[in-house]
């Protein structure tokens, strides 16, 4: 999340917004986000339906796996990558999407 925060000014440049999703409750997320200094929205999804929707909810586990998803302006998922975010890859992809016509 720190990496996304560092790159916020570049996401702005590419007309993109970032949102974090976690199964932690709102209070835990607030403390966690404040501790790191994260200013973008963090969504609390305690029931985990977003994890099921994005197919990143390991069966029987109370946490999500790590997945980065880029959704364009029309709602189409254009990029999916598991594990730690590849920030340079993400930025290059967003730049390309932005050049395509501000679709994201």
């Amino acid at each position, binding site marked *: 999340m720190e*990496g996304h925060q560092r790159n916020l*000014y570049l996401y702005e440049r590419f007309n993109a917004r970032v949102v974090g999703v976690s199964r932690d409750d709102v209070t835990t997320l607030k403390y966690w986000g404040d501790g790191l*200094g994260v200013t973008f929205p963090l969504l609390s999804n305690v029931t985990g339906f977003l994890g099921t929707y994005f197919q990143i909810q390991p069966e029987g586990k109370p946490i999500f796996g790590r997945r980065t998803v880029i959704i364009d302006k029309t709602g189409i998922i254009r990029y999916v990558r598991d594990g730690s975010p590849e920030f340079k890859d993400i930025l290059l992809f967003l730049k390309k999407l932005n050049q395509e016509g501000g679709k994201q």
Partner: protein
Amino acid sequence: MKEKGLMILCAALVVIWVSGCATMEPKKPVPYKLTSQGTVIWEDEFEFMPPPPGWKLLRPEEGGDINFGFMRSDLGGFPSTTTFAYDEEPFGCTAASFEGREKEFFKRFLFNAILNFQVLDRKEVQVVGGEGLQVDVEGKDPVRGEKVRARVIFGKRGDRIIGFYITQWRPMDGTYDTAAFDIFDKFVKSFKFLKKSFYETL
């Protein structure tokens, strides 16, 4: 005779296996080259004065907290080691000022060691051709009987804050080796960016 034949066969198999390993493992290209001035050019992006022989190169295989660095084991047994590194993304993310980043950084620096840090010195410095901030700290763990002395230098590359740091671990009654800090200072002083960073080219 049968035993001798078997031994020859075994030896041949070992040779085939070993040579097979040698051919299967492609030689990894090194990410640096040496210049005639004694500096190192790292991935055609950075140039710096390397430490003298005896220091091992640190290079994360994938991701990690540093870009690259050097370490050595010191006399005195565990935990006596010295490590220094260049870090393109030091801990912290919101502060634009060095002082703000310093506060964020030290929330996470050596976090797992659970140390009580004391700031020994803080001063403005010149680094990579611009303004910077140098902070010297000492952390102690009275329970495990260990201590660490560290120097962190924040500088800028384009709009982003970068960092250099050295840590030197010792047993609580151990003596620090200040010569290692001089080697680190030489490394930092000699450090140059040979091209714009990825972020500056976006």
